[in-house]
């Protein structure tokens, strides 16, 4: 009970619309342990990004809320760093400065200039971007931008790393590379990660538990699947692994048999 690190407690949100209140999320309950990698999967529009935005503090829940280390989330903060879907690097800053701005803000008072410089470079090395420190975002590829976005989030030393479909806009090969990088980083640092995805393989490959959301309105958690695959995981050997394919089938069954997306019909 008290091991719970991040808790979503009866979380619900209702948006006012011209046609009256719209209940997007209802009664979302989830307990996440420290170091866990959680993937939230569901059809587009089911409110999974809304869950993440509430944990990030960018949205306020109407009912219930998110509790991180026994403190309710009321506003955004660097201890819940977000990797946005479209990287959202600041285009007028170099790769280095995009990470440094976060480092300066979070560690400005605690670290010396040299330490902050080293920490910035260290995080860019983690994502293998140390070769492009002086490049601007429009001079690097989409995958590289997302790597820098991850480095910026990691550099805040967040308690929870929130990732909103971080690889959704990338091509399959680049996505695979970044997934491998993320697994490597997670293995090294043991971050607590909450990741939104609509990619079944990504969810099974990366996460400890897959949270499957029902289709909205009033979306909530349908099932939670424990992924008992050994770490470190290797995508090639897993491709033929019976357990892997079992988990994959479970998620697919949920998404396509139990929760058909009405809009995709």
């Amino acid at each position, binding site marked *: 009970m008290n091991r719970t690190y991040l808790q979503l407690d009866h979380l619900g949100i209702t948006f006012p619309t011209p046609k009256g209140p719209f209940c997007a999320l209802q009664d979302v309950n989830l307990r996440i342990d420290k170091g866990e990698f959680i993937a939230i999967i569901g059809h587009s529009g089911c409110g999974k990004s809304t869950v993440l935005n509430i944990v990030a503090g960018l949205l306020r829940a109407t009912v219930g809320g998110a509790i991180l280390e026994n403190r309710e989330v009321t506003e955004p903060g660097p201890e*819940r760093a977000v990797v946005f879907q479209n990287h*959202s690097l600041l285009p007028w800053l170099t790769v280095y400065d995009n990470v440094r701005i976060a480092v300066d803000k979070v560690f400005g008072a605690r670290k010396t200039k040299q330490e902050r410089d080293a920490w910035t470079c260290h995080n860019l090395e983690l994502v293998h971007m140390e070769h492009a420190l002086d490049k601007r975002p429009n001079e690097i590829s989409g995958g590289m931008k997302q790597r820098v976005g991850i480095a910026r989030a990691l550099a805040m030393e967040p308690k929870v790393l929130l990732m909103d479909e971080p690889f959704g806009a990338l091509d399959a090969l680049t996505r695979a590379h970044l997934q491998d990088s993320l697994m490597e980083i997670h293995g090294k640092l043991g971050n607590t990660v909450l990741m939104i995805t609509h990619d079944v393989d990504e969810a099974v490959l990366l996460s400890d538990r897959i949270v499957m959301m029902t289709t909205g309105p009033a979306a909530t958690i349908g099932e939670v699947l424990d992924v008992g695959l050994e770490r470190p995981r290797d995508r090639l050997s897993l491709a033929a692994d019976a357990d892997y394919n079992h988990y994959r089938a479970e998620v697919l069954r949920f998404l396509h048999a139990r929760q058909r997306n009405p809009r995709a019909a």
Partner: protein
Amino acid sequence: MTTHVLSPDVLNDGRTDSARSQNPAGQGLAAQAAPAAREGVPAVAEPQDGARKRRSAPQGDPPAGNAASPNWAEAIIRATLPPLLTFGVVLGIWAFISAAIVPDIPGPGATFEHAKEVLADPFYQAGPNDMGIGWQVLFSLSRVLSGFALAALVGIPLGLLIGMSQPVRRALGPLIQILRPVSPLAWLPIGLLLFKAVNPSAVFVIFITSIWPIILNTAAGVQAIPQDYLNVAKVLQLGRWDVTRKILLPATRPHIMTGMRLSLGIGWMVIVAAEMLTGGIGIGFYVWDEWNNLNVASIIVAIGIIGLVGILLETVMDRIQRRFDYTRGGH
């Protein structure tokens, strides 16, 4: 695309489609004035279409312009010939009007002779009311630049404020919408009453001229900032001052530059009219003075110089804008 630069869209509540676009509002309009200045050079790099080739072949190709001549010679001809033709046609019409319709307008030849005279000593000083055309231009430029600088000083912060805060937008929106369409010259009497002097009144008129494009473009720039950048600022818990300094200002810089470029161009146009009314030294009054002396050749020379200075201002602003525009870098 061209109209909404100056449109009051940004003053309305909520984000408009135009304001949401990533490109600085009015890039189009700002760029419109530029081709005149740039046409000459980049045309070299333009893909040469067949029609152009055919047109230039019979007239333009010099005797050496056969297969043996280097390509660049041909390219230079293609680039310079069309504008030369245009100037030729205009000179022809001018000469015709002067010779056959309005003999009071001196022809191109007479004007050229006069221009040599005027430009031989542009910076002579023969008393407070008799100075060379160079001085006239410099006086006008100094008024434009002072009014423009003041407008930027007031307009940029005001635009940021309007862009950021809905209450401020609501408070100032109607006022700006009423005042913006007013010809800046209408403010001249108010300026004269306020400052009891001609020079500050002209600067005041340029200030009024320049401030609207700066305010509106800056405000549009703030509203066009992607929500993502602001979310980054929120996650980093940047304070208001840091958000302004590290996110708002750099993100809106291209818009601000567009507004400044527009306003400087309009300011240079308005100063001529303003000085015609205020008198004193300045290219506008020079034109009016020469008209009173029925010295039409001087007026035509002045028109040419006003145009050239306009191109110069435009080019300088374009350079500065390119320097500041992160969206044009790379790729």
